[in-house]
């Protein structure tokens, strides 16, 4: 009889432990969420302070145009001097390169095309 009672007590304690662990987990998740929120807030604050230019939009526009003409520009990527600058393991030193004649990466500028009606 005493043994049965002890067994019951242990089982009840186990359930309590599980309950405690669950609640710990919930607390941890809440804490992690709060940390994430705070980091996001700080990031936003820093980005507002840095006020970066909207070059991502420019880049997106150029990529859209380039997507329409996928073969363009390959000659540059294959150019030996470019490869020397670009190579991740064996680049030129110092790895500085000047590309001239191309005003920009997109629109008509690279191709210097004028439309004549």
């Amino acid at each position, binding site marked *: 009889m005493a043994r049965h009672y002890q067994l019951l007590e242990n089982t009840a304690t186990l359930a309590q432990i599980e309950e405690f662990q669950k609640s710990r987990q919930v607390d941890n998740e809440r804490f992690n969420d709060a940390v994430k929120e705070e*980091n996001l807030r*700080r*990031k936003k*604050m*820093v*980005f*507002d*302070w*840095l*006020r*970066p*230019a*909207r*070059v991502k939009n*420019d*880049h997106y526009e150029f*990529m859209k145009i*380039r997507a*329409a*003409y996928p*073969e*363009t*520009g*390959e*000659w*540059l*990527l294959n*150019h030996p*001097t*470019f490869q*020397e*600058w*670009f190579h*991740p393991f064996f*680049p*030129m*030193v*110092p*790895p*500085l*390169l*000047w*590309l*001239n*004649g*191309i*005003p*920009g*990466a997109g629109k008509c500028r*690279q*191709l*210097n*095309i*004028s*439309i*004549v*009606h």
Partner: protein
Amino acid sequence: MVVERAKELPIKPIVLYFYCKHGYPEQDNFPAVARTVLAQILEQDGDLLPHFYQRCCESGEAVLETRTTIEELLKMGLDSCKSAYIVIDGLDECGRENRKEITQWFRNVVTDLPTSEPDRLRCLFVSQDDAFSKHDFSGLPSIKVRVEDNEQDIESYCRTQADTLTLDPYNLARERATVIGKTVAVSSSGKVYLFLPRGCDFF
């Protein structure tokens, strides 16, 4: 394109880029370049957030403007990159002093790298070839884009544009569209003139 290729590299470098734009005060001077590059570094390396946040709180400025802080943070940000590819495009769109300043700063940050890691940072400048460029980039390897290099690009461009002539509202026969696409005059200055039927409007 260079930017996208760099992002695909297995070493996963930090990729930083800037497009200069004439007439845009937010895109034609060194502080603008620096602040934008700093934001890009922060996006790709969250470990810097605590330090940047602290400096932000201490700065007392709504927008970072103090030159010494800008340079200090940019140097620090670049120092923390294990590997960074930097592309600065359209330098000829900036005023004389601005383009010189941008170029010199980034040239120096690369040439000042120690011999133990001389290629940790690398920089590509894109700029028209003019008197100022010749001075600012003197001594650097360069690639000149020539008309011949663009030929394949031009063909590809014209072919694609000619295809649109077979659709509404032009509805030209394919043969005729192809002839139009091939009718390209290249002037001696390297410009390409695309002659179109009256009423066409590709842009």
